[in-house]
């Protein structure tokens, strides 16, 4: 069978994602390092699905890796960006995940809204905000420009 290797890789990444969700979804926070490992498995699957329709750019300072974050925050923001935007090969969706000096991670995506866009319930983003609030931390901030959508997530 063709693409047997791809099948193996995909299954491995899928099980990593699944395991992370099973083990960690009830935790309040998790080390950024672990969230990023999980995110990379998720990104792998996303790239296999969307091919050249999506481009990721990760740049995380190694001093941030021990900081904490509520589990699946970054993954959900990536999923949201894909849900609301076009991922066409001619004009791919760019998502960058970058740490800064203010103990924050900025998740920025280019804005190319879908044609005939489905209504958004806002559940995902509200959920993230509530989790930060319940933990007693400032909520992630959102910056919107005509071409970019950025969520700034504080590290704990």
């Amino acid at each position, binding site marked *: 069978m063709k693409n047997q290797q791809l099948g193996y890789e995909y299954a491995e990444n899928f099980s990593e994602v699944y395991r992370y969700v099973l083990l960690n979804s009830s935790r309040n926070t998790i080390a950024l390092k672990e969230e990023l490992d999980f995110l990379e498995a998720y990104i792998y699957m996303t790239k*296999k*699905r*969307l*091919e050249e*329709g999506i481009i990721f750019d990760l740049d995380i300072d190694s001093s941030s890796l021990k900081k904490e974050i509520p589990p699946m925050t970054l993954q959900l923001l990536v999923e949201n960006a894909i849900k609301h935007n*076009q*991922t*066409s*090969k001619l004009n791919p969706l760019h998502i960058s995940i970058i740490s800064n000096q203010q103990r924050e991670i900025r998740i920025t995506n280019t804005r190319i809204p*879908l*044609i*005939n*866009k*489905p209504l958004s319930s806002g559940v995902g983003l509200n959920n993230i905000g509530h989790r930060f609030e319940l933990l007693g931390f400032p909520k992630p901030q959102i910056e919107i420009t005509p071409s970019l959508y950025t969520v700034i997530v504080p590290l704990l």
Partner: protein
Amino acid sequence: MRLNTVLIIEDEKPNADRLKRLLQQVRPHIQIVSTQEYVSSTVEWLQTNQQPDLILMDIRLSDGLCFEIFNQIEVSSYIVFTTAYDEYAIKAFKYNSIGYLLKPIKQNELEDALYKYEQMSRGSLLTADAIEGLIDYLHPKTYRKRFLLPYRDGYKTVLTEDILYFSSEWGNTKAALRSNNFEILPQTLEELEKQLDPQLFFRVNRQFILHIDAIKGIFKHFNGKLKVELKYYPTIEILISRDKANAFKAWLDY
């Protein structure tokens, strides 16, 4: 009906490959005429090629939701929707849909959908146009007969048959009566156009809808325009553009 040609609309290549493989397994004779992954490219393809017997259509495409395709072009093919989500099932019903398959698509479910197509006789699924025509036939459209208007501390009615023309002036809609009186109406001319019997009333320009009996004389004007004079209201001059003039004359000639 015999199923010969299928168009696949699917933006994720592994899914498209899988679908092709399944199709070849269950119906080796089927010709897969094309695979499209965008709303825009699908519209283009359908405009330049003969529409296939059946379209296997993913709902969420790279550049938008597939329903936009139906907004842009008349699709005569039957549709089997394929999607990972179940939230669009109701919406999918509106189109020439004969199936809704959840991913990952199972071979027997695909086969059931194809079998459904093959068991249909030509025209056994009514098109939206046909249904609308049938409804019109069963319920002849009724036109507005009267207007209920506020009057002193109550209401009064004005019969549509007593109105000679409707006009739009400074954003108000005015109805001119045979009795030489005017009434102000809450409706816009656009709304009235849909409510009035097209045999009796005609929208001659942006400002006027005329009753057929209100017309006293028609004169040729510059540039192919027409000038209309009204009974009872000799001071009003109405111009009809060249574009509208033919439709206007056809209305008066039947």
